[in-house]
């Protein structure tokens, strides 16, 4: 119901990652301190539940791997050729969001200003090609900066002054 089904090869790779994660969880759970000095019963050790969940994930991953192999995951399998240019929107949204959340907020810059810069740059970047084609770059800058400033100030006011929530 959520998205289209990925190919068997993608499922195989995903199954491999999940299996690795499950094994890591099981190893972590097995090597976890069993608090022997507290003389606790074995069925209450802290690693019990994560270990069981790791085992459950491992079993499901194996089913996923076997199913994808039976569906022909290895027949003509190849890594999809990834051209960064085709995914510039994805890369841009990740870079912008991570830069804002890790670099801009909580490091001294006033929240409203950090948010205004982020919103303005975000809008400008994603409208750049269209605006350049239409010859409306200055208008694009104006729209981006205005939207950034208004949203930064309104969010700042709504959270901090209206609902008394602390801001980063």
């Amino acid at each position, binding site marked *: *119901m*959520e*998205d*289209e*089904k*990925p190919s068997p090869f*993608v*499922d195989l790779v*995903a199954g491999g990652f*999940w299996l690795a994660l499950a094994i890591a*969880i099981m190893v*972590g759970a097995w090597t*976890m301190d069993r*608090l022997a000095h507290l003389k*606790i*019963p074995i*069925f*209450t050790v*802290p*690693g*019990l*539940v*994560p270990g069981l*969940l790791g085992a*459950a*994930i491992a079993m*499901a*991953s194996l089913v*996923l791997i076997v199913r994808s192999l039976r569906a022909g995951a290895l027949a003509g399998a190849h890594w999809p050729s990834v051209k960064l240019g085709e*995914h510039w*929107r*994805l890369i*841009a*949204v*990740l870079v*912008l*969001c991570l830069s*804002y*959340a*890790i670099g801009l*907020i*909580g490091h001294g810059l006033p*929240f409203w200003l950090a*948010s205004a810069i*982020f919103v303005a740059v*975000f*809008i400008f970047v994603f*409208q750049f090609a269209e605006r350049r084609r239409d010859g409306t770059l200055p208008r694009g800058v104006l729209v981006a900066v205005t*939207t950034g400033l208004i*949203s*930064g100030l309104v*969010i700042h006011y*709504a*959270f901090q002054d209206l*609902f*008394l*929530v*602390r*801001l*980063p």
Partner: protein
Amino acid sequence: MLDGLIGFGTAILGFMNPASIVYALVACFVGFIIGALPGLTATMGVALMTTLTIKLPSADALLILICTYVGAIYGGSRSAILLNIPGTPASAASCLDGHALARQGLAGRAMGIATSGSVLGTWIGMIALAFFTPVLGEMALKFGAYEFFWLAIFGVVISGNLTGNDPIKGWMAGFLGLFIAGIGQEALYAFNRFTFEVHDLSGGISLVPALVGAFGLAEVITVMKDRPRPVMVSAYDTVIPKLIDVTKYWRTIVRSGLIGTGIGIVPGVGEDVAAWSSYAAARRASKEKELFGKGSIEGLMAAETGDNACVPGAVIPVLTLAVPGSAPAAVLLAAMLIHGVNPGPLIMVENPQFVYEVVAMMFIASIGILIYGLTLTKLLVRVLQFPAVLIMPIIFVLCAVGSYAIASRLFDVYVMLAFGVIGFMLRQLNFPMAPLVLGIVLGDLMEKSLRRGLVLSDGDLLPFFSRPIAFVMFTLVAVTILMNVPAFNRLTSRAWSSLGGLFRRSDAGKGV
């Protein structure tokens, strides 16, 4: 009965003050817009509003959240009808007949049907909420550690089974959620697990930042990664619902309302399954099957009644068992805990009035969607034509500030980022989000119940299977899993056919 009515009346009167009315109207509006905008979900809306209302009194905060939830589920129908894009996953079933009606120049009538179906669905669910919560609450008092363990496992398994199109992936997401809930100090000995000496991880992963990431940032990335398509809004006529649409299909409305409420009660399944199930049931029972998918009023009515009836339904297990019936209800549960309300089996003993307050909140929300359903069409059409590039960065700013607001620590912003990126990748790989969320919510209950049960039985596993309710729940879990094993299905169908043959032979014998 009378106590319930008095409780409901008292609760309604309690909300009849200017501040609460304004909160309800604003929240219904916000939910309506969030639901109508494709890409923004009810879960994200409720999660963001949770962070915004953290300092409000609990009654007002929960009123806002419930109004947002109901408004968002209703709002999704607007884009389904006008754009053929479901505003929320819950409205996917409404696209089929809603947009078909719009193509016939009947978009206004379709919106009227959606409004009447949604309001009536909310009322059916609301009545069920008022009647079943005390009953289920009493039943829940019989639950011990063994039953709660199986309830948590059942929630994750059934959610994994029904919310995606690949049960294995749903279960994996659910198990991952259960594991994530265990990160940090465990409850029995305060031992740090999987914290890698990161101090902030000792307190565990907070639910709200994780949800804001999985449903907020992941949505922002999903929407922005593709070039936006031009928005084509259908023309519309009057949106005032016609009485004949309600009277003619009253059976469909009642049936869909009950199905929606029932599905809401099942842990972690949610509104989209409720809408599709109501739609399928209406189609099976309809005298005009051939119209379904081509602009059936009955089909649209069924889908809209079902998904909105699911909202109060999903709140029933929240109140009685502290187990959410859907992803937005999971946020609602977290919000109740943040605001000091402790839902669970003792709610009818300790705080029965709260149940009727929630019923009253649902009623107020239904009035809110009725008002906006009749009045806001022109504004909504303008909002739908608003470019996503102007909305998405603002949504992300809200995600960041909302995550921070819960505990005033930047660590939660990083949790939101991590869950956003992981949630996006999992969606691309067809792993559903609802079981993951449910797993995070139920992880603590599952682990505590398992270890407490083992302590009580001194390590003996038998009580997990021998107590009647525990046995029933274990059987449900086992059957849900086995139903997805082809060999088991072949075996059961063979058994059924041989059983049928046996009956046919005995019938033939009687005839002779």
